[in-house]
């Protein structure tokens, strides 16, 4: 059977174009929607990144402040280290008056000092080979400085001298307390016991060179 078609030719074309138009509109809408969503995400991520940036900047400011403090501390540490090094080289300063007052405080009332001698002596420190190898400057090994004090005094009896030695030994920073001699001393009609003691005070700082 012969099929007849009276549909105008423009109509299918119009319909095709309409479909195409609708498709394009949908595609545009989808694209615009996608773009809008993408922009939303971009804005959201941007805002999030800005927040993170602000937080980071705050952290950086805080870190800078800490760094400044640390720098000051480091400078102080350097300064102190330098001072410590100088002090290690020079040794601890011990005031003679304070030393004498300490000795005087330890002396029994009946004892008198006739002479006092203060002498600084430097002795090369004996190091193990391992410690020697670890030194920064092996040619200049650390020196141990000591203030060697020599006391000459008189006391009525040996007991007093012994007590005095005992008291000196108790002082923690008096090392190597030793008696050089003790003998009689005649002063007019009085007989006294003359003695000579030596002890040393460490002037080196621990860890100093």
């Amino acid at each position, binding site marked *: 059977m012969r099929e007849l078609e009276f*549909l105008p030719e423009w*109509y299918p074309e119009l*319909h095709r174009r309409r479909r195409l138009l609708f498709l394009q509109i949908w595609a545009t809408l989808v694209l615009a929607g996608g773009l809008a969503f993408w922009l939303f995400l971009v804005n959201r991520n941007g805002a999030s990144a800005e927040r993170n940036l602000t937080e980071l900047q705050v952290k950086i400011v805080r870190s800078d402040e800490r760094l400044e403090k640390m720098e000051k501390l480091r400078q102080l540490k350097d300064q102190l280290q330098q001072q410590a090094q100088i002090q290690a080289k020079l040794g601890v300063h011990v005031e003679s008056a304070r030393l004498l007052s300490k000795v005087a405080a330890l002396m029994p009332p009946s004892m008198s000092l006739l002479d006092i001698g203060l002498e600084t002596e430097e002795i090369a420190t004996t190091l193990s080979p391992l410690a020697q190898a670890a030194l920064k400057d092996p040619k200049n090994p650390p020196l141990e400085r000591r203030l060697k004090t020599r006391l000459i005094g008189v006391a009525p009896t040996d007991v007093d001298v012994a007590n005095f030695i005992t008291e000196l030994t108790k002082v923690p920073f008096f090392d190597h307390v030793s008696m050089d001699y003790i003998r009689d001393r005649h002063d007019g009609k009085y007989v006294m016991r003359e003695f000579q003691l030596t002890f040393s005070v460490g002037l080196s700082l621990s860890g100093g060179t």
Partner: protein
Amino acid sequence: MIRFTRSKVQPIGLDIGHDSIKMLQLEVVADTLAVVAASCLQFPIEARADAALRLPTAAGMVKRMLREGGFSGRRVITAIPRDILHVKNLRLPMMPTADLDAAVRFEARNIFAFDTDEARLHIIPAGEVRQGGDVLQEVIVLAARNEDLSNYVEQLHRCGVIVDSLDAEPCALYRGVDRFIRRREDEQEVHVVVDVGMRRSQVVIGKGREISFFKPIDIGGLHLHEAIAQKLSISVEEAKELRRRLTEASEPDEARDSVRQAVFDATRSVIEGLAREISLCLRYHSVTFRGHRPSRVRLVGGEAGDAQLLTTLNSILPVTAEPGRPMLNVNSSRMKPSDRRGAMSEWALALALGLKRTEGRFGIRDGKPREGPAPIASIAQTVDLGKAIQTLAVDDNTTTDNSGSKRAGYVPPEALRPRHEPVRQAQEVGHA
């Protein structure tokens, strides 16, 4: 239920009639047909009365039917209105099919009242005819002006549908026959389909799968209603309602019988007029195209279920008239019960339009074999060919005027001219 065969839903067949709109959508499952959705809405009275209001009113109705009818998609196949379809018959010398189209286009310039370059033109080769000693080929030329078509499509588009195809009613009606021809012997049978509509009727005759004759007749249900209204002094709407009640009433009733008789008397002359026109169509076809004769006339359309019409046609026509049952081989279980009453002849056009995009042939649902073709002699016994030709010649004399009267006869006037005259013949059988 799981279906293993692939279903193919067809575009909606849209039949915009004089008093109602029918929409029918089919699906093809293997070689069977089933209704997907169907809907029918009556035009309001004012739209029925005024043709200009019909399409604007139809827009809203179609939208409503699409919305509520359960249709799949918006693609529709519809027929162009008979007002804008112009049909002419041409007899041309035998020529190759390739040349026929050009020859018809050339001849069409002189037979249509409008410029055929601005029109859509289609031809249907009707068959070979003998004119004197010559063998000519008759073609049915269908034309519609592009402007009319465009306007119609635009109006349809406003209904919210996508027009998939615009068909011609005769072709669509005959498709309802063509799609169910499966046997080889059926392809030689002559089928007569008479569509009795509200405003007019049309006769389509074809042999096998091809249409060979088409004629519109300006007698329809409206004329019956008018005749009843005039006879009983009632309005046309009341007459329509009365006819409907009488058609539906089956029990004998004395009071009703008198009314029935009055209605019968009122419509008898109109129906007889229709029967005469159909009879002349049959005679013309029998005389023009030799070979098989029709064994029956199938009535389809909204008025086809009228018992009085059938009775009168059977008494006048030389062959049996029976109501066509277009939905017989279609699974119509999804249609509303109110739409499934009777022979469902009113769905013929919508069904045929819905079948346009189908391919192949469809079997009958119950598996029973069809009736065999009618014997050739059956109609030859009832039609006296000599008398028929004589009658046609008389009819022809009344229709050879140049005005192209719609009450034309069935033999082109040129057919009686001497053989040495040009073979160009044209006869208008449609509405200008």
